[in-house]
């Protein structure tokens, strides 16, 4: 199943159109590596995937159970994710 997905990944329309990477390129490869259990290679493919998954899990838990400081924690997780995505994209663009 994972091998089939690795051969038939969803193509990025931005990359098809312009020929350059978009800020999310690498996420699918990282997700496949993560599902295979290889966390290090997943981090190397796309570092922001694991914090994004944690943030979404925490978002659903927060919407369900209403933690006391859940909104603040989500905000800081969001800032961390924003920094990771932008640094990753700028690194991919210029190096």
């Amino acid at each position, binding site marked *: 199943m994972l091998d089939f997905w690795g051969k038939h990944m969803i193509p990025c329309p931005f990359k098809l*159109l312009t020929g350059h990477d978009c*800020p999310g390129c690498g996420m699918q490869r990282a997700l496949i590596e993560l599902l295979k259990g290889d966390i290090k290679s997943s981090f190397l493919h796309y570092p922001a995937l694991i914090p994004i998954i944690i943030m979404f899990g925490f*978002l659903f838990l927060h*919407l369900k159970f209403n933690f006391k400081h*859940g*909104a603040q924690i989500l905000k800081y997780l*969001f800032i961390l994710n*924003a920094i990771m995505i932008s640094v990753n994209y700028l690194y991919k*663009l210029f190096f």
Partner: protein
Amino acid sequence: MDTNNKNLNQRGFSEENEQSDELIPSPSIQSKQQSSFQAPVTSQSAGYTGNSSNTSDTSNQQYNNNKQQSHRQNQFIVSSPNSGAILTLGILSLVMLCCCGPFLVGPVLGIIAIALAPSAIRKYYENPDIYKPGSLSNIKAGRTCAIIGISIGVILFMFWLLGSGLNFFDNIDQFEKIYKEAWDEMGY
């Protein structure tokens, strides 16, 4: 009853809505009906707070009670303050930057979140008693997330233009070629 209400107010949930009745613009007939409706609900919640061992259950119960009250009190005002939607959209404004249609879908979702926020805050302040106290922080966090997401999207788009996007016009010819080939294959 009074002691129970004080405890509720300390915890952040206020149950008795006599102040909010003054704030809500409703005819007097409705308010009389409300007072008759409120009595069983408050008695239920008071019975619930008697055994306050499980706080999450009581808060959920109180939220359900508040929802029922809001439905009964003001049938013309929307009961949900859109807080969860604003938080989710604000977070998706960053994450959709990485998925389908980058630099386009994410900022649009962020703009929707920012546009929903002021009305939600106004509705919360019109009658803060019937909404969850966490919803205001949810709205504000979602709004800041949307602002950060939009600004990150714009900054990354500028950097993309600076870095390699200026070659976009070279690639347009290639794209046109592919497009024409596909168009010819379809037989037009």
